[in-house]
């Protein structure tokens, strides 16, 4: 990740104060540089004046002695004129006569009397101005001694400029400390201000993330700003959106429930028929028992018949109950569930004189524990939808395949192809809306179940030809779910 993109990922509450701090550092750096530059100039002017005053005094005092080359008088003059009250004191003063011979020095042991002046020492003096050397913490200044327009000698003075450099250092430290504190303060203020400003956005972001995760909650009154500002307005709008979403979801649930009841209603007539069929046989068996119950063989065969009939009725009733109350089916999917589904759709198929081609490939194992309720609901909805699409005397297919990746449930019809609206409900990732009318509600429920199981839905359907809807449920799907 590049630096720029790293910076962009930083929260605004950090970025804005950081920008303020960077700006302040730049401004304070510029100001400090100007102040120090100005101070440096002022100090050099001050030192120049001080040095000039000192050198003027020395030159005026010792010129006659230089003329006479009287080393003692020159030395005595240097000693007498050495200031003691100033901060900036001459460290060393050397007076040379003609030919740069040292007449006297404030430190005769370092600059021997009546010897040529050390050229490296003389080299530290440039022109007539003060040269400051921060390394030796000294200022160097030189003045020629002239008499009747004749050059008769020179004075070299070295000043201790520690106090000036110390002053510079102190001012630099003061500037840095002041600017640092000021910058830190502004950075803090910026942080607090920006955080206050973006706080509503953060609250909104938190709630929206929750909403995206599927559990939208309205923003509580306690989180509302004390004043009725833009944030409050946005919060209200968001809460209205959440309420609207919740209402829509409630409506969808209600519709799903109604659809479930409706499909159950449709099944009910078929189920009644399923129940009625064995009932005729049961009644006959009862009559037979009443008339010939004393005969053992008749009795046993009749009871056997009654038991099979009642068993069939119980299966039908249990299958219906399982659809109506999926929560009672909080158990893993088993092969019995496919038998139940076939039983449930049989009346509808029979009504339309259709046939179901059922095929199970592979074996359902106890692991993974795919939830039976939602899968039954999805299969039922798909089969009823296929039956509705398939013309009379047609064929409806249910193919269940257990693969290493998971479970594939394919439902095929012989209809005229799936309309675009229905395809959209099943597969369009942008279309999460509840269908505007009851049309397609069954498919919408299938989609909800598929999402809940992290399953994928694929379609092979061309307009005007048979359609195959395949529900691929991965092995690592969530545990028992009550999606439906």
């Amino acid at each position, binding site marked *: 990740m590049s630096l720029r993109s790293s910076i962009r990922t930083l929260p605004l509450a950090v970025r804005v104060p950081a920008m303020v701090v960077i700006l302040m550092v730049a401004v304070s750096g510029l100001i400090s540089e100007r102040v120090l530059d100005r101070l440096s100039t002022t100090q050099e002017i001050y030192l120049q004046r001080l040095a000039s005053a000192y050198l003027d005094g020395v030159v005026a005092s010792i010129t006659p002695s230089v003329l006479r080359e009287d080393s003692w008088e020159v030395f005595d003059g240097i000693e007498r004129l050495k200031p003691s009250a100033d901060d900036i004191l001459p460290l060393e003063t050397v007076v040379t006569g003609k030919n740069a011979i040292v007449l006297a020095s404030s430190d*005769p*042991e370092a600059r021997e009397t009546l010897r040529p002046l050390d050229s490296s020492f003389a080299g530290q003096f440039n022109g007539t101005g003060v040269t400051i050397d921060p390394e030796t913490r000294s200022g160097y200044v030189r003045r020629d001694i002239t008499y009747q327009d004749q050059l008769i000698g020179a004075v070299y003075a070295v000043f201790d400029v520690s106090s000036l450099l110390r002053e510079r250092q102190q001012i630099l430290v003061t500037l840095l400390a002041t600017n640092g504190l000021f910058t830190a303060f502004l950075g803090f203020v910026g942080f607090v201000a920006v955080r206050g400003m973006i706080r509503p956005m953060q609250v909104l972001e938190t709630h929206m993330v929750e909403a995206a995760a599927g559990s939208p909650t309205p923003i509580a009154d306690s989180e509302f700003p004390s004043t009725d500002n833009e944030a409050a307005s946005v919060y209200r709008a968001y809460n209205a959106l959440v309420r609207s979403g919740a209402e829509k979801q409630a409506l969808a649930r209600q519709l799903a429930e109604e659809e479930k009841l409706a499909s159950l209603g449709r099944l009910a007539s078929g189920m009644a028929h399923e129940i009625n069929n064995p009932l005729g046989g049961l009644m006959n068996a009862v009559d037979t028992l009443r008339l010939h119950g004393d005969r053992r063989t008749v009795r046993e065969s009749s009871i056997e018949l009654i038991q099979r009939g009642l068993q069939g009725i119980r299966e039908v009733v249990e299958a219906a109950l399982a659809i109506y109350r999926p929560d009672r089916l909080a158990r893993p999917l088993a092969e019995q569930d496919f038998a139940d589904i076939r039983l449930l759709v049989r009346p509808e198929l029979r009504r339309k004189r259709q046939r179901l081609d059922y095929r199970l490939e592979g074996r359902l194992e106890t692991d993974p524990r795919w939830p039976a309720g939602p899968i039954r609901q999805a299969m039922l909805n798909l089969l009823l939808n296929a039956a509705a699409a398939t013309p009379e005397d047609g064929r409806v297919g249910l193919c269940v395949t257990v693969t290493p990746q998971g479970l594939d449930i394919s439902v095929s019809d012989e209809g005229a192809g799936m309309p675009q609206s229905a395809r959209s409900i099943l597969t369009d990732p942008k279309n999460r809306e509840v269908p505007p009318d009851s049309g397609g509600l069954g498919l919408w429920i299938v989609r909800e179940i598929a999402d809940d199981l992290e399953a994928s839905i694929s379609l092979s359907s061309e307009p005007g030809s048979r359609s195959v809807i395949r529900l691929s449920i991965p092995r690592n799907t969530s545990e028992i779910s009550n999606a439906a």
Partner: protein
Amino acid sequence: MKGLPTLDVAGRKWSRRAALRLAGAGALCAGGGRLARAQPQEVIRFGLTPVFLTNDLELLNALQAYLATETGYEIELITRRTYQEVTALLVSGQLDAAWICGYPFVHYRDQLELVAVPDWNGKPLYQSYLIVSSERQATSLDDLAGDIHAFSDPDSNSGYLVTRTLLFERGLDPDVFFRKTMFTYGHRNVIRAVASGLAQSGSVDGYVWEVMREIEPDLVNRTRPLRKSEWLGFPPVATSKALAHSRRIDALTRALLSMAQSQEGQRVLGMLRLTGFENADPSIFDGIATKVAMLRGVL
């Protein structure tokens, strides 16, 4: 000895300024001298040379106060930078008396008369020191060849004549033997010049060197005597022959000779580290006279 360190410090800081003031006072005195001639018995004009340790105001004030009290005369102290100036004033009668060096006294022996000679450690004698830097390895005069040498004054016995004679005795010319010679016009200045390294050797009054070692040990201990001369007559207080035995010179003589007897006089002697003054025989300056005679025609 009370108050001596203060005297010392003040002496270092104010010696030049004090000298200027005193020079001004001397000028006023010269103006007042014309009036004094109308009433000559009222004032004693007393000259001082750089044989003095310093031109310290406290010492001058104490000396002036003591002499005024003891003599009953008004005392005017007159200082000059060189021996020559003071000697000239004395010989010409512009001073009643002056504390001069033995060398000018010998030189003007026929015009001057002794008033009193100070006693140092009980004797009217002192030595001339040849000094070098305390760290220097030199052991004899020969080691000083090629030096920059500091003399005190061309009219000083200890600060010039002794070393000059020493070289003469060995057939040496100071301007050849030494790389350079300089006159500092003060024994303290000779010590300063050698201590600082401005000069590598110097000729100085032994009394001044010894006393200053107590007063300014930091300065003086940077030097050491390489050679000490024989004992010679201490710089005397002298007057012109014309004024000798006048009332005020007699009064001055009494005041000086009795200095050790009074508390005020003791204070002055304490400052000067002297034991008193005595009426010494002029023969104590024979040693100096011999040197002067030796150099006659050379200087």
